[in-house]
């Protein structure tokens, strides 16, 4: 089980409330996590990263376990505490604009 926290606009877009709980085999890498999210919630395709399989959107950041994971290579392993469901993976919309 893995936990993901999405920004409010994306929760509304996907019809979600609260944390996303991903059951089943836990994604091992950042790329696998994005693929899992996009597969389970197709409406999120293109909202976190450019289509079709492009880089992270500039105003989207990834955090977990107190660390900024935004600029890690996509094939980087996720923190063990995230994979084990002990800590959530945060998708954060940058505070920018008005």
């Amino acid at each position, binding site marked *: 089980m893995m936990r993901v926290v999405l*920004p409010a*606009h*994306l929760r509304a*877009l996907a019809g979600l409330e609260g944390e996303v709980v991903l059951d089943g085999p836990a994604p091992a890498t950042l790329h696998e996590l994005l693929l899992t999210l996009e597969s389970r919630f197709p*409406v999120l395709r*293109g909202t976190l990263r450019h*289509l079709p399989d492009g880089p992270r959107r500039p105003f989207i950041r990834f955090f977990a376990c107190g660390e900024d994971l935004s600029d890690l290579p996509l094939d980087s392993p996720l923190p063990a505490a995230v994979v084990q469901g002990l800590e959530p993976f945060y998708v954060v*919309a940058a505070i920018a604009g008005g």
Partner: protein
Amino acid sequence: MTQVRVLVGTRKGGFILEADGRRRDWRITGPLFAGWEIYHMKGSPAAPERIYASQSSGWFGQIVQRSDDGGKTWQAVGNQFLYEGEPGTHAGLDGKQYPWVFRRVWHLEPHPSDPETVYAGVEDAALFCSRDGGQNWEEVAGLRTHSSGAYWHPGAGGLCLHTILLDETNPARLWVAISAAGVFGTTDGGRSWQPLNRGLQSSYLPNPEAEIGHCVHRIARHPARPQVLYMQKHWDVMRSDDGGARWQEVSGNLPSDFGFALAVHAHEPETVYVVPIKSDSEHFPPDGRLRVYRSRTGGHEWEALTRGLPQEHCYVNVLRGALAVDALEPCGLYMGTTGGQVYASADAGETWQPIVRDLPAVLSVEVQTLP
């Protein structure tokens, strides 16, 4: 009984305003997609309960929404807009070349007779088409790959394809308008495109009469006069009587020929409306008076329509997509402002009243006239 459905896109969501044919009492629904920029909403003429909406965000990118029940429920459809082949580059405001990057959908134009076909005008300027109700999009690449493409440059609002006109009698014929490249037309369904900018003069260009580079803000036409096009350019209101091959200025006695919005009366092909704005550096009405101007002679001679519109201390803008007409008799007009007002006239512009006053800044207004 006849109904009117007004589709309003704003900086922070979409709204639907509905009334019966008397157009007096309005029911307001929204915000739809609250917090997102809704650049454009438009209903299918072939299946009026089908409505498309362009939902955009600087954070989260582009979503396209579709309703099949008149806006009661929505589903996200396809949002993958990939330029065909190697996109190449276009001009920037600094004269350098920049790669084409998809940013957002400005305009959605459903086909007049096929409910599954819909066109999208996007930034950076290109035309896309879906033939499955918006699920999948393919670029109509003959436009962007026109030999002039490297010379297209953005206007202040970006390099956007903001207007699409379809010929109801000839599906192979389309016109599009791009800021700041100009008008382009095709007569072969989009395989080949011709610049249609002769007669335009733009003093900010090194060659004011250049074939490419004009900041066309809006074009419109009447179905009964398919060869007659009207244009609100950055400066100048223009008219073409030959499908865009040649333009002549018809600004006449307007207090300013700068503006964005333009619309043609539903039943009178020679009656056209514009909303003069003071200048490109002062995006508000001249003298702080919001006036719609009407010409019943296809241009040159204009009359101010002011009854019910603020005539002092008014400093809102009316953007290019924010003026529309219904198909009732008498013709109704609808105008959205950056101050969040949507004004309606049920008598062809003689008198106006606000349907709603305090929406977010209005980006676009479209109207459906329903049986």
